[in-house]
């Protein structure tokens, strides 16, 4: 500090005077080195500006590469997904064709038989009974014949009339019977028509179902073609879908984690009865680790089970196994899961017993009168089985529920790739913006510093400008005088 004061007071014992001398010297120095200082400031900040712009450009290129890579990943995933969907739809169509349309020859035969029956019946209907002969005119003619009062003739004519009437009645009866028979035939045709109608409805239903599937395939094919053409719209739709999947899977995983926590609480305490409650691995209780390991094994078995059922595809090795091996794996993982669920149920029951024992001990320690504690325990013993059974059921069901964690986990992992890519792009964009802003800020700062520099040396600078102006004026005057003189001469 003293050295600094001595330096300040170098020119005079009066600090103000000495400081003024220092200031004058400094301003003179700054004025003399103005051009070089300006160049230095300008080039330094220009260098910084250039490097920042260069960085920004590199980041921009990186964003472009990352975007195209993300798009490729997204499109590839989307393509694979749509492919699987289309394959599944074709499989469904194949199943429908095999299941329903394989019966089509039989249906066709039944329809043909029904049509033949209807045809035969129709032909039967066509065989009409002979119409009653036109004897009415004959009877009327005979009746109209004059009898002449001859009883013999009258009798003959009556007989003829009677015979003709009888024949007419018989013909009419035969005609009516024939009509009734035809109606009967027509009535017999009715079930055949209905059967025919039902069969036709059945065929329509199958064809409609196939048509629906066909429409779904058309939609998916459109989607597939859109993805194949690397359309931006398709990529955006896939990204949105991926984000939705990420959040939904994350939510389900959180719920599963809470379920796992409850499961852990259920078995951690009784586990200390098996492995001891006083040993530690690091700072964690061995019993807690054992409980956690059981839960993790259950989750692993669930993964293998769903993997061997081909519901999830996290392990390609399991998916590519032959069916026999896969079935074995399915049985093994399910058996282990079942055994572990059984163990958990028994541990949950043991937990309840321990809790009961602990509660009884606490009551014995708190109450001075032992009969009080017995009464307290006895009064609640009636309903003790409810939490016991509840805990056992929970202990048995939770492992199976946790086994299904594989499904949201797979979705989460798949969507995480997209989400991480989008996040990286967002981060890089922010960095790009910051770099570009910094570059322009650096340029502005360099201008401000140059102005400040000039502000410090404004006195000599103003003097210089005044001198320059005076010189220019003098030179102008001199040139004017010279021209006037020349004009005079």
């Amino acid at each position, binding site marked *: 500090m003293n050295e600094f004061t001595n330096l300040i007071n170098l020119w005079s014992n009066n600090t103000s005077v000495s400081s003024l001398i220092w200031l004058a010297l400094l301003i003179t120095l700054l004025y003399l080195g103005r051009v070089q200082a300006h160049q230095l400031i300008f080039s330094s900040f220009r260098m910084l500006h250039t490097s920042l712009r260069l960085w920004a450009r590199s980041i921009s290129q990186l964003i472009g590469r990352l975007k195209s890579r993300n798009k490729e990943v997204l499109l590839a995933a989307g393509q694979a997904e749509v492919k699987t969907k289309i394959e599944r739809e074709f499989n469904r169509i194949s199943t429908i064709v095999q299941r329903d349309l394989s019966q089509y020859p039989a249906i066709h035969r039944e329809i043909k038989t029904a049509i033949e029956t209807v045809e035969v019946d129709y032909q039967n209907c066509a065989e009409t009974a002979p119409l009653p002969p036109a004897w009415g005119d004959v009877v009327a003619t005979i009746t109209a014949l004059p009898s002449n009062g001859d009883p013999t003739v009258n009798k003959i004519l009556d007989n003829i009339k009677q015979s003709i009437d009888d024949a007419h009645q018989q013909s009419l009866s035969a005609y009516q019977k024939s009509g009734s028979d035809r109606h009967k035939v027509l009535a017999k045709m009715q079930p055949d028509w209905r059967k025919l109608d039902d069969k036709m409805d059945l065929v329509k239903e199958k064809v409609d179902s196939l048509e629906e599937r066909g429409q779904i395939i058309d939609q998916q094919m459109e989607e597939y073609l859109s993805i194949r053409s690397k359309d931006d719209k398709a990529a955006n739709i896939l990204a949105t879908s991926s984000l939705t999947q990420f959040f939904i899977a994350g939510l389900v995983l959180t719920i599963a984690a809470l379920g796992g926590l409850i499961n852990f609480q259920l078995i951690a305490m009784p586990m*200390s009865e098996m492995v001891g409650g006083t040993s530690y691995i*690091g700072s964690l209780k061995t019993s807690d680790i054992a409980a956690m390991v059981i839960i993790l094994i259950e989750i692993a078995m669930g993964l293998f089970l769903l993997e061997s059922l081909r519901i999830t595809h996290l392990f390609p090795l399991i998916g590519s196994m032959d069916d026999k091996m896969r079935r074995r794996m399915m049985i093994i993982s399910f058996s282990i899961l079942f055994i572990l669920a059984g163990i958990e149920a028994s541990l949950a029951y043991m937990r309840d017993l321990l809790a009961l024992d602990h509660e009884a001990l606490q009551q*014995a320690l708190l109450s001075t009168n032992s009969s009080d504690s017995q009464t307290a325990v006895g009064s609640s013993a009636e309903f003790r089985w409810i939490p016991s059974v509840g805990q056992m059921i929970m202990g048995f069901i939770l492992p199976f529920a946790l086994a299904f964690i594989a499904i949201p986990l797979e979705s989460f992992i798949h969507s995480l790739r997209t989400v991480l890519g989008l996040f990286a792009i967002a981060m890089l964009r922010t960095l790009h913006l910051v770099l570009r802003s910094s570059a322009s800020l650096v340029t502005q700062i360099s201008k401000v510093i140059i102005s400040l520099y000039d502000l410090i040396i404004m006195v000599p600078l103003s003097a210089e400008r005044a001198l320059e102006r005076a010189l220019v004026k003098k030179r102008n005057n001199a040139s004017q005088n010279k021209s006037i003189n020349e004009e005079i001469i």
Partner: protein
Amino acid sequence: MKNFLKAAITSVLLSSLVLTGCDEQKPANKSVYLLLDTSGTYTKELDKAQSIMNYLLATLDSGDSIAIARIDSGSFNEKDIIAKTTFDSRPSTTNNQKRVFKNKVDTFVANLEKGSFRTDITGGILQAADFVNETQAGEKYVLIFSDLEEELQKGHIRDFPIDMQGIQVVALNVTKLRSDNVDPREFKNRLNHWQQRVEDGGGNWRVVNDLERLDRMFVQN
């Protein structure tokens, strides 16, 4: 990339599990030795001692050790230990041990007809220090349920430093004597005398007279 993501997620899950466990310190097992003054009129206070014992049994857990001993005319003696045990690692066995322990102490209190003539507190503390040191527990406690008025038999030598390194000594229910009412300084002097002896021996000294706040007996970690 896919495999890398899977590995990363697994690592995050495992590391979070480990980190969750690491931020908690491994709890140290406790060793508690309760000295009961059975001299003269202090025997009337033994029902309070039973409450303390019940609190201890409710608080201590698997792996902890507990012992209860009486202070009589010559307390540096294993025969004065009423009950002692180290709780098993299995919770069910621990509960049974606690029941047996409680029965022993209850029987002792019920059968105690008359108190001892003398009060050898130093001998009891020496015995207690031996016990808690033998258990090699992480936290060692000697609880003294007494008025802290020592009356030694003729010929007993107790005026030497006691090694109390790493032991927490807690005086419980230190009652005031008639003479303390005449000169309260005697009470303070008595407490200060024991505090100095314990602290000179490397131990920590605390007094808990409010038996409603027994949780103050143990050091909060």
